[in-house]
């Protein structure tokens, strides 16, 4: 096969893999904003916490799958505690106060992570079953990245089923459009909020675990990937899942093909894309809330 073409294909799959990771983080952020109106600046920190907890489980038991299972659940518990203890009692401080509050909680979590695990890079090996390459359209490609794509798609389908096929999903969608009305109908909105916050942070945790073997685990992880996910969320329109999905795939391609063609200016491409979209439509591609 033509080597140029095979390079294009492998870069394309790279792009999809990175885009799916971004989507996992961004969708949690987006759904939390859409429903609760809280812009969770600590979301990227939860993502990093997932990676660290998985690392801890792997060093304790040596089993990656256990880490994938336990890590995100622990992250979700931390997220629920944050919602229950802090955000619920900070209703009267306004959006701006909530923003700074999530930022403060985020920096506390980062400080605790640095205290426990230090600041150096922690390598996390790819699990045995997923090591090696596979031949795909004549291109050999690492299995692990394909697994990441598969995992993300599985979670995406799970989320869609949850949102559009269950009673709980109906309540959540109703609360996104008008939470006071849902509350007036006798639904315990606080419980739903807690659940949504838990799901959102759980997805961030899964993304953290998925990316840990690729990028290794280090305290700069939240800044590096978190900023990208935040940009995805904003460009796609806060609170919109389809928007987050489309933009994260576009950004995945932009970053992988950008590195190939204009390696110097790859990060600029994403930001320029965001600036152009927001200049034309300030609420983002699919955003409705101002």
């Amino acid at each position: 096969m033509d080597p140029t073409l095979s390079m294009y294909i492998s870069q394309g799959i790279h792009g999809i893999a990175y885009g799916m990771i971004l989507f996992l983080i961004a969708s949690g952020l987006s759904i939390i904003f859409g429903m609760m109106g809280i812009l969770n600046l600590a979301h990227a920190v939860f993502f990093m916490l997932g990676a660290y907890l998985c690392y801890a489980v792997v060093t304790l038991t040596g089993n990656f799958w256990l880490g994938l299972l336990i890590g995100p659940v622990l992250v979700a518990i931390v997220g629920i505690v944050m919602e229950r203890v802090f955000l619920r009692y900070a209703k009267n401080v306004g959006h701006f106060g909530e923003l700074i509050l999530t930022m403060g909680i985020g920096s506390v979590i980062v400080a605790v992570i640095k205290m426990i695990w230090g600041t150096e890079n922690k390598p996390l090996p790819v699990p045995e079953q997923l090591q090696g390459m596979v031949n795909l359209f004549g291109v050999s490609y690492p299995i692990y990245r394909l697994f990441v794509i598969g995992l993300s798609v599985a979670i995406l389908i799970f989320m869609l089923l949850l949102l559009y096929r269950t009673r709980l999903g109906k309540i959540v969608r109703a609360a996104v459009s008008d939470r006071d009305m849902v509350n007036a109908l006798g639904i315990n909105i606080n419980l739903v909020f807690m659940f949504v916050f838990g799901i959102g942070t759980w997805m961030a945790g899964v993304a953290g675990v998925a990316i840990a073997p690729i990028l290794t685990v280090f305290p700069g992880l939240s800044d590096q990937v978190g900023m990208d996910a935040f940009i995805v969320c904003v460009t796609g329109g806060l609170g919109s899942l389809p928007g987050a999905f489309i933009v994260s795939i576009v950004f995945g391609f932009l970053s992988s093909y950008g590195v190939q063609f204009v390696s110097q200016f790859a990060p600029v491409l994403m930001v320029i894309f965001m600036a152009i979209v927001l200049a034309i439509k300030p609420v983002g591609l699919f955003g409705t809330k101002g």
Partner: protein
Amino acid sequence: MNKTMRNIALWLVLFAFLAFFPSLFGVYYTNMVVTFAIFSVYAISLNMLMGYTGLLSFGHSMFFGFGGYGTALALRHIEGIGLIPAIGIGAGAAVLLALILCPLVTRVSGTAFAMLHLAFGQLMYVMALKLYTITGGEDGIGNFPIPGIFTESLKSSPENFYYIAMVILILCVFLMWYFTKTPFGQVQVGIRDNDMRIAYLGYKIPQSKAVIYVAASLFAGVAGSLYGLSHNLVSADGSLGIWMAFSPMIYIMIGGVGYFFGPMLGTAIFQLVDELVLRYTESTELVMGIVLVLVIMFLPGGFMGVFDKLANKLKARTSKREEEKTT
């Protein structure tokens, strides 16, 4: 002694204290005061947008950074330029950027305004990193000449730099204070609280916002320019990074949103805590995070809010006593 006399005396004491500060406390604390003054001006300029006009900006750092880069580039590339023109070029660069962005950003408000600024702030940050032939990339522009006004160079004399910086910064604070006291400053608050009504009163909302926006960016530019001069270094992470965009918001939140001197108080508290914490432990993040959470949970109006409440209580008590006297 009446009230105006007392006020004048207080101001004189304050200025005398500031004038003798370098000889009393030495270089270390002098530099600290300069940093405090720079960040106060920066935070107050953001508060003009955020607290007074209700426009939340995630990218105010781009004006700060433009001020720094403008001054640094002018000092490096223009032969024999004076200090004041160089600072003017920095502030002018910030104003130019604001004028370019104006038509775009004044149409929106709320979250969209914040996000648009996040986009442009990040754009400027990444551009500063990538256009390294102009900006020096990650290293930034360092070791540029700093001419004095009366002396040859300010590099070896922090006292002289202190006086020049303090005069400029105090002037900035006074101008901003004056700006909020004008009738136009009241229109700002009106736009924040009910922009529809201000529009019905015959004010043009986007144009009014634009004037405030440009003024805020001017003062942020001056602050950024002096920050670059005080470190003799302007870098992408130091002046344009995301932390520089969020830190003034934290100062404002700790001090009190919407109070003119709130950001100043917040900057002072933040710097003090930073200074004290660094003596005992490395993890300032932890302490800062805890302070932020506690302030927002228990003091939603910031520290100025607490003072305001106490003053009100005191006033209520004295007026009650006077009432009792008269009856």
